[in-house]
């Protein structure tokens, strides 16, 4: 009874070593595929990280006219505009605090504007749910009565938002290209496997082996190839990502573009790659053998 379980495992290892060149090229194919997948994951995750961080920082600073007695009504009207995520009220005193704080030690000089002399206005800090609507929302807020000025950094901010959209689109195109490349690699590997094994499979069937009996060792071989094949991309990903992260100081060009921290990201990536490798090996070999078996009687 034990031999029913042990036989295909033994058989699989025999196959792996006796067909070493085939095994080796399959492992390389899996490695290259997973390396592409890993690269794609690192890119997407960081693009996501950067764009969401930047977008979270984009806000509209709305100065309110001193004539407005009831800011609550105005706040409700701003909140009603599409694309607005949240509206925070900030009194002119709080505005002065922020102003002074932004100048550090030297800011203390502005303390003399405290109270009656405060030239600043009460304000709303508006955060957006969709940064691409920045210009539109800014214009609509400006048009409201009681609003003195709606500041969103003007064309520069709009340029930044457009650039982020472009980066994301470009990244997605790259990711798609990598995905297609990976798929072609997998299909090719499976094709080669079928060709090199078709004779063997048909002989087994001719002697009287059932489909499951024929398939089992091939599937175990596939799982093993997938497992081993995932080791190289995991090593390269952990080393490569840590290296790039440290070299860039955890950011891309400026602190506005932070990268995803090395841990636990690389560990999650590693688990995913092992799982993908095994799944790829399992289904790849299962499909290739089954497809061949369907053709023979």
């Amino acid at each position: 009874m034990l031999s029913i379980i042990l036989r295909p495992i033994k058989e699989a290892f025999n196959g792996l070593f006796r067909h070493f060149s085939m095994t080796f090229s399959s492992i390389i194919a899996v490695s290259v595929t997973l390396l592409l997948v890993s690269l794609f994951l690192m890119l997407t995750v960081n693009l996501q990280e950067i764009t969401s961080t930047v977008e979270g920082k984009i806000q509209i600073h709305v100065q309110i006219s001193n004539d407005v007695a009831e800011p609550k009504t105005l706040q409700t009207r701003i909140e009603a505009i599409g694309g607005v995520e949240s509206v925070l009220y900030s009194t002119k005193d709080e505005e002065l605090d922020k102003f002074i704080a932004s100048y550090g030690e030297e800011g203390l000089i502005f303390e003399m504007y405290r109270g009656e002399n405060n030239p600043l206005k009460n304000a709303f800090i508006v955060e957006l749910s969709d940064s691409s609507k920045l210009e539109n929302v800014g214009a609509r807020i400006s048009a409201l009565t009681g609003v003195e000025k709606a500041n969103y950094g003007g064309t520069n901010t709009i340029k930044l938002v457009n650039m982020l959209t472009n980066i994301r689109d470009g990244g997605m195109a790259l990711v798609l290209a990598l995905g297609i490349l990976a798929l072609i690699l997998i299909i090719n590997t499976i094709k080669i496997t079928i060709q090199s094994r078709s004779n063997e499979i048909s002989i087994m069937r001719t002697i009287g082996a059932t489909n499951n009996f024929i398939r089992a060792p091939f599937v175990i071989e596939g799982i093993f190839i997938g497992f081993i094949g995932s080791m190289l991309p995991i090593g390269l990903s952990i080393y490569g990502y840590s290296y790039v992260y440290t070299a860039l100081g955890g950011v891309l060009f400026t602190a506005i573009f932070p990268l995803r921290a090395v841990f636990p990201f690389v560990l999650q990536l590693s688990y995913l790659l092992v799982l993908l490798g095994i799944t790829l090996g399992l289904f790849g070999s299962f499909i290739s053998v089954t497809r061949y078996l369907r053709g023979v009687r």
Partner: protein
Amino acid sequence: MIKLTDVSKTYKNGVNALYNINLFIEQSEFVYIIGPTGSGKSTLIRLLDAEEKPTKGKVEVSGIDVGALKHGKVPYYRRHIGVVFQDFKLLERKTVFENVMYALEITHMDPLIARQRVREVLKLVDISDKANCYPHELSGGQQQRTVIARALANKPKILIADEPTGNLDPQKSGEIIQLLERINVEESTTILMVTHDIGVVNLFKKRTIALEAGHLSTDIKEGGYIQHAEHHSQTD
């Protein structure tokens, strides 16, 4: 044992391989099947081996309607017939011992008993000394013996041999036939041997069935087919 009733076979490409074949072979018979290339010998074997289904008629082996076998049942059927293929069909990545062992492993036989049986059949066909060799390290005759050993491993009721002496010199051919005769007598195995070797047909007289262009042209129970057979061998 083997019964063909009005069997015809037309391939998908339109080639008519067999026409209305009626044939009955009893348990423990030893039968030669001869005929020129394209006469339908290979198709007959493929029908018996369940590789092909008859277009018309019925192929019965040990009471099983071979043409009606479902895909999943075919492997189980094949374990009851041993086939010695002309092109050997040995697994290149396995040794002689493992090739024979494979035929027993598929039946989930206890490994200890199976190994014992492999040693027996290897001894029977006189190839024990090559047990650990791979097929590419063997001569044609040695590969032929390995295939016979594999076909015999499961103690089949029927052994089909497709040109088993095709690649051998006359002395080796004689040895193979004597081996088949011994199996035929000692194990009561029905033997169906496809051959071009007229010397063999002449020397070891057995029932001889001749196929010609898909028709069963002659069926001589007592053998002795020299003249006619030579004619066929010349047409090949």
